[in-house]
């Protein structure tokens, strides 16, 4: 028996040494952008840098990247007339490649009319119900996620440029409060993992900075595109908390705040993540 345990211990030590080397190897490669003064991070690092080279390769090749299936689906939908007004997205906005450039990078944006910020999903549905007189798409529906991905894809490579001053500042503060509030049975805040412990190996994965520049993202785990608020829900569920509702004011405030934490990072939509 003692021999068996002995060899197990040797094996375990060898495994630990190996994983330590692997962790070190990956950390050394992580590239980021310098954060503006007064930011929480010194270096802002995209979630891309925390993924394996195989996952990165999948994102880098526009043909292999399964997120592009959604981009192509939505490109057709962009031209498709829906609703009683007989309009498509194209009737008002023209070619998405030019008119939607930079739009996704600056979301969520303040809406004077609603006197609150709106994110991309909400804006798409406002367009549908007000201008096209069509049924708004439900959150998590293939159509809404595809269109969100398509519009945000038009900003790919452009820096995240969310505005947080003026009327947005109370929302920004609310988002910050949510970010640092511990929730759930595990009593964890967003900051517990993504600010204090990013880069560490946990739950068979590297904790990222929790940046939003790649959303909606093709998650290999789900084998489909996942919108940001679904990921927020997932995180809250994982800490055994009761998640806020997608597209609720709470998640909207959090989206604004988290976007600011990644300010200047290039948009990567459609990204590929675990």
């Amino acid at each position, binding site marked *: 028996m003692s021999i068996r345990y002995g060899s197990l211990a040797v094996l375990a030590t060898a495994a630990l040494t190996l994983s330590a080397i692997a962790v070190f190897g990956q950390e050394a490669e992580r590239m980021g952008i310098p954060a503006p003064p007064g930011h929480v991070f010194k270096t802002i690092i995209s979630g891309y840098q925390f993924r394996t080279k195989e996952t990165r390769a999948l994102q880098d090749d526009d*043909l*292999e990247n*399964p997120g*592009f*299936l959604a981009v*192509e*689906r939505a490109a057709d939908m962009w031209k498709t007339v829906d609703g009683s007004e007989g309009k498509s997205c194209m009737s008002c906005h023209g070619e998405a490649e030019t008119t939607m450039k930079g739009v996704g990078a600056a979301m969520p944006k303040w809406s004077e009319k609603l006197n609150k910020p709106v994110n991309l999903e909400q804006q798409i549905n406002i367009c549908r119900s007000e201008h096209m007189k069509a049924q708004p798409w439900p959150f998590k529906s293939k159509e809404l996620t595809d269109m969100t991905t398509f519009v945000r894809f038009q900003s790919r490579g452009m820096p995240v440029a969310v505005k947080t001053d003026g009327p947005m500042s109370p929302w920004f503060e609310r988002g910050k409060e949510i970010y640092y509030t511990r929730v759930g049975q595990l009593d964890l805040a967003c900051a517990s993992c993504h600010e204090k412990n990013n880069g560490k190996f946990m739950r068979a994965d590297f904790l990222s900075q929790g940046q939003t520049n790649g959303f909606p993202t093709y998650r*290999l785990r789900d*084998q*489909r595109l996942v919108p940001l608020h679904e990921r927020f829900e997932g995180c809250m569920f994982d800490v055994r908390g009761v998640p806020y509702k997608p597209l609720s004011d709470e998640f909207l405030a959090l989206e604004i705040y988290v976007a600011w934490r990644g300010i200047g990072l290039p948009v990567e939509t459609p990204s590929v993540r675990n």
Partner: protein
Amino acid sequence: MADKPRIKLPKEAKKGEIIQIKTLVSHLMESGQRKDAQGKPIPRKIINKFSCEFNSKPVFSCALEPAISANPYIQFDARIDEEGTFRFAWTDDDGSVVTAEEKIALKA
């Protein structure tokens, strides 16, 4: 299954050149092993066969199994000896077939 498959291969190649062909098709690939919220099994629905022909001669084909993830990506090589047309076919469990064609020319 209505989506157009994504295919990438060069427009032209030298005689005898080996080219790389990449294909990606949108499909749920439901394994048949999962259960829905009511506990009832979700019936299997996958692409079970992929084939590629060049000028009606087989180039590559494979059987796909339930463990293959959604949106299967298949990559293979082919030697080009003449100009012609590649025909790709993905066969679904329900019998429907998605097809696509790509032409390739010979480089002078």
